[in-house]
């Protein structure tokens, strides 16, 4: 596999495409390797992005900018995560109340016909259905602050049904497709930007956005459904031999080379 990456990295003209195409053609050539390669896609994309960045930086002379970006992005990532603590705590608490009050099961009963179609693997009375329904509804209303914790809750519920804890299950991927499509009825942020930039009619983009997002979501979910049988959940014996049955905490990073404890940044500023 390292050959694939090296090849794609050497063609900086079409970097990301080349990387993806190289991985894809490699798959077509060796059908037996398909599941392994695609399953490890994030590993290739992750490494590919950084490797390409380094190689391009050599030519463009942006090495300093790349260095700065790596440090600052790491900081941003932690800030985003920590920023989630408050909202997560609030919504997980409210969710628990809704659950105990029977509201979640009521909502999921109402939407049972849709959820049965989208998530046939999940029992229709399972809490995962309720959490997914709540998360998608929050998204549609433009409450992204509420949608994220609810979505994470939904993923945790789906994980309880998942036999392979490190591999995404079919309902997880379908739910993911719905989420990355970001079905939203009022794109508040961008309307605010348009209004602030002096638009006479900032809300004209509401109908266009709804049409585009619904088409995107339909396409994503359909693709997820069509592709799922080509991506088996079980891998042929992988290279990782130190797999734990449950890796909820302290999973050994994304890349294969095992670094049990991610190195801490050198002494805090």
């Amino acid at each position, binding site marked *: 596999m390292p050959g694939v990456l090296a090849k794609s990295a050497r063609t900086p003209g079409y970097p990301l495409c080349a990387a993806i195409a190289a991985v894809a053609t490699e798959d077509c050539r060796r059908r037996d390797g398909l599941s392994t390669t695609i399953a490890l896609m994030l590993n290739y994309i*992750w490494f590919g992005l950084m490797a390409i*960045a380094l190689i391009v930086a050599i030519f463009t002379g942006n090495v300093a900018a*790349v260095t700065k970006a790596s440090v600052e992005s790491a900081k941003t990532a932690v800030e985003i995560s920590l920023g989630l603590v408050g909202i997560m705590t*609030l919504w997980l608490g409210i969710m*628990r109340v809704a659950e105990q009050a029977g509201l979640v099961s009521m909502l999921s009963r109402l939407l049972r016909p849709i959820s049965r179609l989208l998530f046939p693997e999940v029992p229709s009375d399972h809490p995962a259905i309720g959490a997914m329904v709540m998360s998608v509804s929050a998204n549609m209303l433009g409450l992204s602050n509420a949608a994220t914790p609810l979505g994470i809750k939904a993923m945790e519920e789906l994980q309880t049904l998942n036999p392979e804890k490190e591999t995404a299950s079919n309902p997880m991927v379908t739910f993911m497709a719905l989420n990355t499509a970001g079905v*939203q009825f009022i794109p508040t942020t961008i309307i605010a930007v348009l209004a602030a930039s002096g*638009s006479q009619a900032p809300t004209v983009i509401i109908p266009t956005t709804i049409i585009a997002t619904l088409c995107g979501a339909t396409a*994503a979910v359909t693709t997820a459904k069509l592709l799922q049988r080509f991506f088996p959940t079980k891998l042929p014996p992988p290279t990782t031999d130190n797999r734990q049955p449950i890796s909820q905490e302290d999973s050994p990073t994304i890349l294969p080379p095992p670094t049990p404890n991610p190195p801490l940044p050198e002494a805090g500023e």
Partner: protein
Amino acid sequence: MIRTILQGISAWAIPVLLVGIPLVGLIRGIKVYDVFIEGAKEGFQVAIRIIPFLVGILVAIGMFRASGAMDMLTNALRPLLSRTIFPPELFPLAVLRTLSGSGSLALTTDIIKRYGADSMLSRMAATLYGSSETLFYVLAVYFGAIGVKRTRHAIPAALVGDTVAALVAAAVCIWMFK
């Protein structure tokens, strides 16, 4: 009309839910505060669990952008796009949208400033921004929270969805605003 209703829902939903859910709980005889605390305890751990995944993804994307590779990619694809209805000016945005939420918002704002808030391009850009979520962020957060590392067909499916959303955004804007 529908728009007014939707905007009303958007503004009122959170306070109404925050009061309404515990209200139903109280009516059904639940110790709402105790139950709230019990659920809320998990919040911190979940947020902390996401950190390594998010750092990994955001650092890689940050480096990719800073190196100039993102610009090279969009320039390389420009000739391909000039044959479609999709304006090449928006291609960097379509790519960035899947990678970075704040980055793509900045880029959309930049397009709106440059071409005028009521121009066709700005409306397309705004529609494109509003019609999808930041793929790799959502992926890192949701799969990160539960420790899933083999994402199977999640990325291809999401990319197809984003591509369709971007193309429809351009087409629908041409249809509505030309």
